[in-house]
């Protein structure tokens, strides 16, 4: 009985971490946008959805392989993010939250409608290559190869982000621009370009998460709003602007959700909302956020 319990917990932990990592990739961009650029971006999960659909279209219509389609989706969505940032977002940085909410909500609706018109209302999945499908036995528990892949890729992405921010010159400039934009400008750092770049990469990351995570979170037009709430919970708990916070919050959420649904399925979605409300009351800026 003891070993069986261990196996169950191991399996739940594994799945929870995989789910959490996908949430991290998707939400990282939102945390950055809301925390450092102070923009409420309700269209964020729309980018994740668009990324997923781009990957699907590349694989289905152009016949690209999985390993090509995913990075392509990342790059294309980065470009889309950059374009939209210039056209739409740049003007609303200094506006009230209400205007930001309205505009980004409008953008999200446009994304949903476009995807609906182009692909129809049915649900889509990406065809995972055969090398990544199937299961692997660890401790007698069958672990999905694809989820192992997800955890690996997300960890690598996380490490890359960390390395970039902490160890490169550009990363230092970024930190300076975030900490004190005025001062950063004074020393010649091009804050606007940096922020645009951050936004674009954030959108690209969301797309990466959307494409990779299509197994867990199937693609459909309402994706953009359906998963927005989860992303918001992750970044709120983790603290706006903190990548580390987002990672921890996403992992915690993934694991708590997985364990919660196994052991207390009656409470279901509540657990997440209660935790969020609780955390925000005690620490309104989230676990690692900054008090502005």
């Amino acid at each position, binding site marked *: 009985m003891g070993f069986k319990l261990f196996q169950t917990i191991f399996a739940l932990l594994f799945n929870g971490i995989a789910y959490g990592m996908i949430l991290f990739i998707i939400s990282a961009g939102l945390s950055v946008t809301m925390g450092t650029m102070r923009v409420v971006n309700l269209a964020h999960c729309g980018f994740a959805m668009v990324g997923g659909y781009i990957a699907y279209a590349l694989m289905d219509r152009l016949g690209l392989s999985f390993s090509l389609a995913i990075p392509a989706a990342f790059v294309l969505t980065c470009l889309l993010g950059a374009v939209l940032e210039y056209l739409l977002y740049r003007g609303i940085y200094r506006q009230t939250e209400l205007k930001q909410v309205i505009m980004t909500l409008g953008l999200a609706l*446009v994304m949903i409608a476009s995807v609906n018109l182009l692909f129809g209302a049915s649900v889509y999945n990406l065809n995972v290559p055969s090398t990544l499908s199937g299961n692997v036995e660890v401790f007698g528990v069958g672990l999905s190869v694809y989820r192992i892949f997800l955890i690996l890729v997300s960890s690598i992405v996380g490490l890359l982000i960390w390395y970039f921010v902490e160890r490169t010159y550009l990363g230092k400039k970024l930190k300076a621009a975030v900490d004190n934009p005025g001062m950063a400008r004074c020393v010649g750092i091009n804050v606007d370009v940096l922020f645009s770049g951050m936004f674009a990469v954030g959108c690209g990351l969301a797309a990466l998460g959307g494409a990779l995570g299509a197994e867990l979170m199937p693609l459909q037009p309402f994706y953009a709003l359906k998963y927005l709430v989860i992303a918001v919970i992750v970044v709120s708990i983790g603290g706006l602007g903190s990548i580390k916070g987002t990672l921890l919050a996403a992992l915690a959420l993934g694991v708590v959700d997985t364990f919660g649904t196994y052991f207390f399925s009656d409470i*279901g979605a*509540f657990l997440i909302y209660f935790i969020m409300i609780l955390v*925000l009351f005690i620490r309104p800026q989230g676990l690692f956020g900054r008090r502005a």
Partner: protein
Amino acid sequence: MNTSVLPGDSFNQHHWSIWDALPWVLGLAVFYLFDGYLALGTIVIIMIIACMSLNLVLGYGGVETLGHAAFFGIGAYVAGLWAIHVTPEPITGLFAAAAVSALFGLLSGYFLMRMRSLTLLMLTLAVGMAVYEFANKWSSVTGGDDGLSGISVAPLFGVFEFDLVGRTGYLYALGVLFIVFLLFRAVVCSPFGLALRGVRENIWRMKLIGSPVTLRLVTAYTLAGAIAGLGGALYAQTIQVVGLDSLSFELSGNLLIMVVLGGVGRLYGPFVGAIIFLLVQDRAAAFSPQHWMFAIGIVLILSVKLSENTLIQKAGHGLKKWTMW
């Protein structure tokens, strides 16, 4: 940096004029001339009430919320359950719904009104969704995904039956709207309303002059809860089925869109916004529903990009006199 929601003419007082009779004349005209559209008309009236509620906290209090549907839905379910389990008499149902929604407003407002903008926004979203999930889970009472049905409503005042064409329902809703509007106007033109607008314009200064900001906000939130609850009750009584859609994020978003379209913080903003949104949606749905969402998205984006966030402002100076207070 929280710039003001409205331009400098935010503190004008509303003075009664002949134009104030316009919405009611229109309302009665619809009743007499457009018999087949009373169902739509009733929904428009109900949404105007819900938008007035949101306008109170958003337009006058400066509180941005993504979870306002919670008040509406709570009112709807309470009225529905009241009709099924207590009495099908409609007026008492209205009071019950308003009371419970107001209580919810008081409780959530007590905790929420201490929060800052972004956190508050996220929290309202979370609270709204939590209420939705709660209603979903408690399906033995609310009917869950199936909705609450079997709501029968006794004749109004014991005399007027709720008929198929929707005549009674329409006039009933219109009457409630009229009373609520008078109350609303009284509140926003009172010293309390003025203080609320002060909070919206500059919360720090209000605190500095010793104004009990949190108390004012909580009061506004509670009042808004009551108003939205009334709207929800009307919804339950005229449709006679309450679905989870009355608590959904979609409804919260739609209310926000309607208030913004009509003019945040304008006395008649909810009227304009709700009427235009719902009428266009109705026609668009008949024509091509898939394009509706696209069009609305574009309109929202444009409305912000063009830096004019109200249709009333676009309509020019002639309307200004009527629409500002």
